[in-house]
């Protein structure tokens, strides 16, 4: 272990370049001859394209090319796809409408790309983009998913009658209905999960470069998973075969899910680079990001939760309508199904669950995974319902939860998941203690005297991370396997490179992954380098999302390290004339246990490469690879408590304290884990109190800049009280569960439970902006 190994608070190796301005993001890349692109986008939410006239634009100063969807189609570039097949309960496949990277016949949301303009400067490209004349015939638009299902609603895709993509179910309807019928008490709620815009601080960008001499493409892109981008662009979009396409995701300024997907822009920039004969760079401005980055959430649900006379949950019935926007984004279908409804058991023993989910097209930006992806929606629904039930039943919210906790593991829920380990009571206790829950009544009374309304709320969340066993997700419709790869190269002088298919865009992999290696071999952390984000360097990988880089990515590294260790020990045993089984690795040396005989790590490595004296039959070199496929999801869980205070005169709500008690399994670097929780909480509190993407009825996005979309700022938030109490995950070699999404999953219901407590109201629709809180306080 040591100072730099597993469990140590090692400061980050990657920080040096970021704090000195030496980070390298896509917009920092310059290729000789590079030109700048601006996309012409639809100003209408729904319209037919009658004509696109590019003549005037082509003649503008500095313009290299103006290209449209017709040319793209003619060159055989494919439509964008959704890579996870969901079948409706009647057995029919989901209805995937055509999504051309450049629309040529119809536009379906404001921001739909219709042409690309390439010029010497971005200013000139923008000048010319304004000169592209697109004649539209406007059509009626629909932005609300529930309304889109109604008779007579505008229809988006001929493939999808009534805009319905699929009507899917999970669980046992009969048993659930029976439980509700027989219940002593049923809590019923309507729950809205507000639409969000991910807002990574680095806007999306792509630089496509076609090399004529090599007949080869390179794409620098803001991606969380460059290998998936290469695979999809090769196999489905016909950009180029995989061996002719290199995808590089250099430093990426945050993702939160929004940079998983393959968007039209990178496909078009690559294609246009060959067509126009120049490298083409596109960088989104912020409003473009608001309009076209995949949004998150946007669910409308009804829920019924049945209790027996002992306040035990006997059944849960959920009906959800999920808005997927104008087109099916890459993993959009999985989010409101297998990442959502499979978590509806929460931390509770619920014998019968049934969920029905309908997904719908609307004239809005595509909706896909955003930090938590499905799990925040499930947690919000469940934890708001538990809170309401506690109030209706007249019992303490903590005790209602505790008395329904799952305490025996493994636990098979009625909705696929099999929880492997956890101690939910421990997190609840830790959170209540940290929040001084017992002292709340006094604090509330004191606040009341000062004219403020104080409330407290909790949320006990569970999530499924470490996605995911390939065979399992394959059987559920996934188009890919969700293993991860690692390659460990020990150089001739003993330094080590780890090539990983995970991608770091803020998670600190260059540090935590190196800690793993340093701890294992006792070598200095500075002698370990992590290589990622380049398909020419790393053979294959599935990328970073779903809190999978620790549980899956690092497990792959462990497996490769196992192989390296085995070979290193063989070499050492040979050099030391000892038995392989007696070799131990300590402090950077391979030793014969119980003796002072040893060979330093670097000498062993040198021996592997000089190959002058290797065991007979052994190949030279020291490099091992592994593809690790998890055996189960992992199940991080925890309890969050929010205490807040409302100024009833203005509706301004201040978070007084926010407590997080998580169970993440084993932890590699507590500093980085805490940072992940802080960031997640800020996004969850943002969803609850500040953020919301609003379209008007005609489909114009009203929140398309930071003037109108409320981003959490430093003075909106307190410092957080975070702690962990960990039960190791039995499913992977490191016992890791994952920590990237918990904060965003657990926090929204804690905030709204506290707010409704403060206001003494039954429900509240997020976000709790001052005007909405004030209005709610008036009605009360």
């Amino acid at each position, binding site marked *: 272990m040591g100072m730099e190994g597993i469990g140590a608070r090692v400061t980050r190796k990657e920080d040096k370049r970021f*704090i000195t*301005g030496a980070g390298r*993001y896509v917009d920092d890349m310059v290729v000789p001859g590079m030109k700048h692109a601006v996309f012409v986008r639809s100003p209408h939410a729904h319209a037919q394209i009658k004509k696109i006239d590019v003549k005037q634009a082509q003649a503008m100063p500095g313009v290299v090319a103006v290209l449209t969807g017709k040319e793209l189609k003619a060159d055989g570039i494919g439509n964008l796809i959704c890579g996870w097949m969901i079948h409706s309960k009647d057995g029919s496949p989901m209805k995937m409408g055509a999504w051309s990277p450049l629309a040529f016949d119809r536009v379906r949301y404001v921001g739909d790309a219709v042409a690309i303009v390439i010029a010497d400067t971005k200013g000139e490209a923008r000048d010319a983009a304004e000169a592209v004349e697109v004649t539209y015939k406007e059509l009626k638009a629909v932005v609300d998913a529930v309304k889109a299902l109604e008779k007579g609603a505008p229809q988006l895709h001929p493939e999808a009658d009534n805009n319905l993509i699929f009507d899917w179910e999970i669980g046992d309807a009969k048993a659930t209905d029976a439980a509700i019928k027989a219940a002593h008490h049923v809590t019923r709620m309507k729950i809205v999960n507000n639409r969000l815009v991910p807002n990574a601080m*680095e806007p999306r960008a792509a630089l496509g470069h076609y090399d004529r001499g090599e007949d080869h493409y390179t794409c620098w892109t803001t991606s969380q998973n460059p290998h998936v981008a290469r695979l999809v662009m090769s196999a489905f979009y016909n950009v180029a075969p995989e061996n002719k396409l290199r995808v590089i995701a250099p430093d990426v*300024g945050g993702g939160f899910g929004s940079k998983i997907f393959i968007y039209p822009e990178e496909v078009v920039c690559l294609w246009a680079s060959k067509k126009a004969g120049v490298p083409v760079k596109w960088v989104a401005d912020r409003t473009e990001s608001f309009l076209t980055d995949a949004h998150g959430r946007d669910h409308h649900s009804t829920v019924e939760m049945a209790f027996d006379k002992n306040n035990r949950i006997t059944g849960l019935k959920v009906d959800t309508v999920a808005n997927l926007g104008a087109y099916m984004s890459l993993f959009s279908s999985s989010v409101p199904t297998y990442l959502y409804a499979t978590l509806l058991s929460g931390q509770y023993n619920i014998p019968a669950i049934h969920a029905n989910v309908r997904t719908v097209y609307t004239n809005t930006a595509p909706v896909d995974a955003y930090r938590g992806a499905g799990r925040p929606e499930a947690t919000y629904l469940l934890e708001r319902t538990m809170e309401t039930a506690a109030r209706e039943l007249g019992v303490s919210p903590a005790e209602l939860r505790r008395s329904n906790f799952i305490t025996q593991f493994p636990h098979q829920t009625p909705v696929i998941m099999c929880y492997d380990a956890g101690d939910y009571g421990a997190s609840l206790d830790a959170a209540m203690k940290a929040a001084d829950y017992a002292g709340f009544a006094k604090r509330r009374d004191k606040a009341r005297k000062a004219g403020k309304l104080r409330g407290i709320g909790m949320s006990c969340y569970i999530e499924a991370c470490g996605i995911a066993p390939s065979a399992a997700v394959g059987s559920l419709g996934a188009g890919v396997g969700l293993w991860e790869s690692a390659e460990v190269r020990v150089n001739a002088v003993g330094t080590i490179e780890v090539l990983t298919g995970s991608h770091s865009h803020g998670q600190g992999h260059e540090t935590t992954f190196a800690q793993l290696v340093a701890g294992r071999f006792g070598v200095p952390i500075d002698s370990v380098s992590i290589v990622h984000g380049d398909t020419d360097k790393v053979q294959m990988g599935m990328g970073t999302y779903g809190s999978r880089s620790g549980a899956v990515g690092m497990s792959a590294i462990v497996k490769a390290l196992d192989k390296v260790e085995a070979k290193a020990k063989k070499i050492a045993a040979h050099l030391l004339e000892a038995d392989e089984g007696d070799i131990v690795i300590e402090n950077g040396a391979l030793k014969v246990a119980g003796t002072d005989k040893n060979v330093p790590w670097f000498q062993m490595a040198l021996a592997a490469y000089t190959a002058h004296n290797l065991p007979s039959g052994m190949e030279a070199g020291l490099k091992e690879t592994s593809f690790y496929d998890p055996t189960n999801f992992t199940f991080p869980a925890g309890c969050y408590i929010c205490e807040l205070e409302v100024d009833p005169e203005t509706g301004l709500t201040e978070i007084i304290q926010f407590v997080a008690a998580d169970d993440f399994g084993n932890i590699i670097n507590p500093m980085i884990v805490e940072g992940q929780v*802080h960031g997640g909480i800020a996004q969850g509190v943002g969803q609850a109190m500040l953020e919301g993407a609003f379209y008007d009825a005609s489909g114009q996005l009203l929140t398309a800049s930071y003037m109108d979309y409320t981003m959490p700022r430093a003075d909106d938030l307190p*410092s957080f009280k975070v702690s962990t109490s960990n039960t190791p995950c039995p499913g992977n070699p490191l016992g890791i569960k994952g920590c990237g999404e918990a904060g965003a999953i657990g926090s929204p219901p804690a905030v709204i439970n506290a707010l409704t407590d403060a206001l003494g109201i039954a429900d509240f629709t997020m976000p709790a902006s001052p005007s909405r809180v004030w209005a709610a306080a008036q009605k009360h």
Partner: protein
Amino acid sequence: MSDISLTVNGRQVRATVEDRTLLVHFLREHQGLTGTHVGCDTSQCGACVVHVDGKAMKSCSMLAAQVSGSTIVTIEGIANGADLHPVQAAFKEHHGLQCGFCTPGMIMSATDMIARHPEGLDEATVRVELEGNICRCTGYHNIVKAILAASQAMSKASKPKAKKAA
């Protein structure tokens, strides 16, 4: 086109630029100083903050021509050779960054903030003063911690008789 002359990170620079060239684009594209970032269109995110004549300003909302004659310091120019600026060091020490995109602007705003508050900073002041810098990764928790720590370290270092902080 305008002929401009200014000092960037201690170096005298002359250039001819389109009048519509923003300072941030001048720094990034003409000077190759890509540490200064653009994160929004409405001068709110603060990823582009640099120092102009000693004060923090948003380089996305100024023309390069406007600062002809001025002295500019960017994130690339605040370290003393290989020695990190105390604010840079504090951001690393306290994990005040994750993806790194907002970090240059945060650090430039923080150094300005500390300079304007020689009396010292408290958490509430730091949070209010960070109004013009948006971070999506850290929840600000460790950024606030880093700035408070840097402020303390710098005030200790500036007291002549005090021993240099380890």
